[in-house]
């Protein structure tokens, strides 16, 4: 079960804010993690604890196709991103790198910074433990769930390579 403190961000958090291009001369997850969300909150990488949850507005992850963005978020210890909506390439990249993401506009409206939040991917519900509230969300599309069950895109590729 995903459970941690909520860190709130606004709409259109772009990939340059998630991991600025000046750090893209490496793809080392540990190094990227140290600069995660740096241009939105320079202290974020130091404050975030393993299991914490990013809660953001519309169009999270817009901009560049850099997979360094979900890699940095995951390596920083963030267990899940809950947003009102995600940019398309980021959505795919998060899925491919194993970073759980959830579209839950109601939850985003209600959750405040620092709230203790639980995300139940199986039941499709975000629980706000601080406020005793629950916000259901639409689970990921069946095709993607199937790919996930197979172990993700790379496992699928491995299977195909054998054929």
């Amino acid at each position: 079960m995903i459970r941690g403190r909520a860190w709130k961000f606004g709409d259109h958090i772009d990939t340059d804010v998630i991991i600025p291009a000046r750090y893209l001369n490496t793809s080392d997850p540990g190094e990227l993690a140290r600069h995660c969300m740096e241009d939105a909150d320079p202290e974020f990488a130091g404050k975030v604890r393993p299991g914490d949850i990013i809660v953001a507005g519309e169009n999270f992850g817009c901009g560049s196709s850099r997979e360094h963005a979900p890699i940095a978020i995951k390596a920083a210890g963030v267990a899940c991103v809950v947003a009102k909506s995600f940019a398309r390439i980021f959505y795919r990249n998060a899925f491919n790198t194993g970073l759980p993401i959830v579209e839950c506009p109601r939850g985003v409206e209600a959750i405040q910074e620092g709230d203790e939040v639980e995300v139940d991917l199986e039941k499709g519900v975000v629980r706000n433990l601080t406020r005793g509230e629950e916000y259901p969300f639409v689970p990921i599309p069946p095709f993607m769930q199937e790919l996930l069950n197979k172990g993700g895109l790379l496992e699928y590729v491995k299977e195909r390579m054998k054929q």
Partner: protein
Amino acid sequence: MAMTMAERILADHAGLEEVSPGQIVNARVDIVLGNDVTAPIAIRAFRELGARRVFDPERVVLVPDHFTPNKDIKSAQQCKVLREFAREQGLTNYFEVGQMGIEHALLPEQGIVVPGDLVVGADSHTCTYGALGAFATGVGSTDLAAAMILGELWFRVPESMLFVYYGQRGEYVTGKDYILYTIGLIGVDGARYRAMEFTGEAISTLPMDERLTMSNMAIEAGGKAGLISPDEVTLEYVRPRAKRPWKVYKSDPGAGYVETLEIDVSRLTPVVALPHLPENVKPVEEVGEIPIDQVVIGSCTNGRITDLRQAAQILKGKRVHPYVRLIVIPATQEIYRQAMKEGLFDVFLDAGAAVSTPTCGPCLGGHMGVLAEGERAVATTNRNFVGRMGHPKSEVYLSNPYVAAASAIAGRIVHPKEVL
């Protein structure tokens, strides 16, 4: 069933008679692209999977263009990964410094992408090739790895949005203004997950370079692709370049669009996108007194010969403001040579500009023009996000090449007519 050109291209590549929005298809890809930032992660995945060969060494394209010529040791290491992989796999389309150009200017120019292609690139501006009538979209490094190995990838068929441009454009109004105005109209997520299709009489009369600028910025509205159906302008560009046969796709009469917008270009004036989102669009006359420190003319958005000619038209016989650094970056070697032959470099150098070898460099705050705290730049690039060109407290204003050149002369953001 009537289909949009986006749907038709996806259907053909998936080996299906028809597809409809929302459907997931597995489709064959014609070109797979990576650069020095995104390909190293894909190559790592390629190795981890134990893959031995790419699906086709002529169709996997690697362009080290972001931090090249190598800006530091770490970037040099990343480029080395690409170079060694390209040699090992015998990739015919690997472009070393000296042949290298900014990928999205280079691939159309070299005829590597042709109309009707399905292209995935690990760079968000891969959507540029939509201007050729190709369905081209950005993906991440893991998708790139999968496509490099299998030559296919899964796609969700997007809903299509139709943008009809009509009317006669005024002076100094370019394709850049059409697309910035459109992004201002619908917002940075106005086309999220959707295919944008640009059409109308004002597109028919638009030169190829400016069409590429428009499709390039589809992603800035969240679009998955930015398509323009090929016409005689496209084919004139494609014929002498194409490395492969091409196919012209058009949307069927009665094809389904989730939204249709009509834009009268005769009412447009040159616009500027203010920090920190490309949707913050205003006519240049309305931005007020904004002193600037730097101007960049280049990038995959506006680094083509048409753009350099537009900038030179304004700069000819003028000097750049003493407080402004003007950096001009032709997007490819061919454009560089052409600009040199036409005498544009004399115009730029006489004006006090620096002219650079092709690189993405300053557009993403990499090198060749990084901004300090509090500095402002006018750029013909595509993004003005926080920290995009350098310090998180610097600012980027997006414009067309005329406005960028005029602002370099004036030392503040101005309409081109102010410096004539």
